[in-house]
């Protein structure tokens, strides 16, 4: 695989801005080679759905500017759609057990929750904070706006709060291996 393809793969996966120096280090090449490969990548992406975005010495991949309208429409559609059973399940676990790890959400639901968590984040129903116990992980908690939408001033006003939390804690405490 050539250098251009490697850069494209890294930028695609990272989904955040990287400097030319970052790329040079990751790929064990000098910055001049990286800069040349970035030129080639820009040309290769011409007419495609994604483009190379440059900002000072930082680069990242983004959707082509001509796609702006389409993406805006998609965002609107996404927000208008119901969150469904998966969304309600994930939301209740975050409400009753938050701040909570994804592992506990997954275990409680019995399925993997990564896509639905993103959806709830985009909708501003939950937010994530760094896990003090594990710097690489996150904890999810309800937003204040969600609480006021539900008309509760604090979490303990949720229906049956004490009993549900005790039950959830009892069952999940010893079971999560992640």
């Amino acid at each position: 695989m050539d250098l251009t393809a490697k850069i494209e793969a890294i930028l695609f996966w990272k989904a955040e801005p990287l400097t030319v120096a970052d790329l040079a280090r990751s790929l064990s090449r000098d910055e001049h080679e990286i800069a040349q490969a970035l030129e080639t990548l820009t040309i290769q992406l011409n007419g495609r759905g994604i483009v190379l975005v440059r900002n000072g010495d930082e680069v990242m991949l983004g959707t082509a500017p001509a796609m702006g309208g389409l993406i805006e429409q998609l965002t609107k559609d996404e927000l208008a759609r119901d969150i469904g059973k998966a969304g309600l399940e994930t939301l209740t676990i975050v409400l009753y057990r938050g701040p909570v790890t994804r592992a506990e959400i997954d275990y409680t639901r019995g399925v993997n929750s990564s896509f639905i968590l993103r959806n709830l984040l985009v909708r501003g129903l939950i937010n994530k904070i760094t896990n003090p116990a594990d710097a690489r992980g996150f904890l999810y908690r309800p937003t204040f706006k969600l609480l006021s939408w539900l008309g509760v001033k604090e979490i303990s006003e949720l229906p049956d709060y004490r009993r549900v939390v005790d039950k959830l804690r009892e069952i999940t405490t010893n079971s999560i291996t992640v």
Partner: protein
Amino acid sequence: MPETFAVRVGEFEGPLDLLLKLVEERELQINKISLATVADSFLEYLKELPRPTMEILGNFVVIASTLILIKSISLLPTLPVTSEEEEQIGDLERRLKLYQLIRETSSFVREALATPLIFYRDPRQRVVNPIFSPTPEITLPALHLVIEQLVRNLPKTEILPTTSVKRLISIESVIADLTRRMESVLSMSFKDFVKDKSDKISVIVSFLALLELFKQGLVSVTQPGHFSDIKIETRDSNTPRYG
């Protein structure tokens, strides 16, 4: 207990796994003859199964019943076999072949898991400016309902379900029962022997015990005609015989 047998919670070796191991150990093809050959060894393992895991035992006994059928046909060729039983035997052969193929393939899958990977974009990175967008479904009563359901469906502390399994009689106790009743009656038919055993598994286990005694030469089994009952007699020469 045979050292190759291990029951591990969540990842136990099932009856097909055991049966396949027995056939492959002897470098045999999967067919009726090889299954009759390994039936005894399989039933030995069945005797050693630990008590608390009734569901696992249930899985084993179902396979055991078919093996006993195959074994008894090989011992008593006159035994009448229904077409349903023929199908049962054919089905076991197929299941074992199927399982063998899956197990073979799973080792390719294990190796494939070590090859280079495909990585996806981290979708969480896309959350830049969240726009608060609740939907009408998000209400306290709806959330309450959902959390109750989740709590109910959580796996309980004991992972394996222990219900739904018929009570099983240990092979040892059936052999003891058979011996005791033989002593008093001297000669009895298999129908008498199983008459107060209503469920299929008890009959199967009884039949297994009978075959075991037959093999050990403790009883003689006669069957006057193709569809008649099997007669069981002790081989004690001091007692009078009839039938």
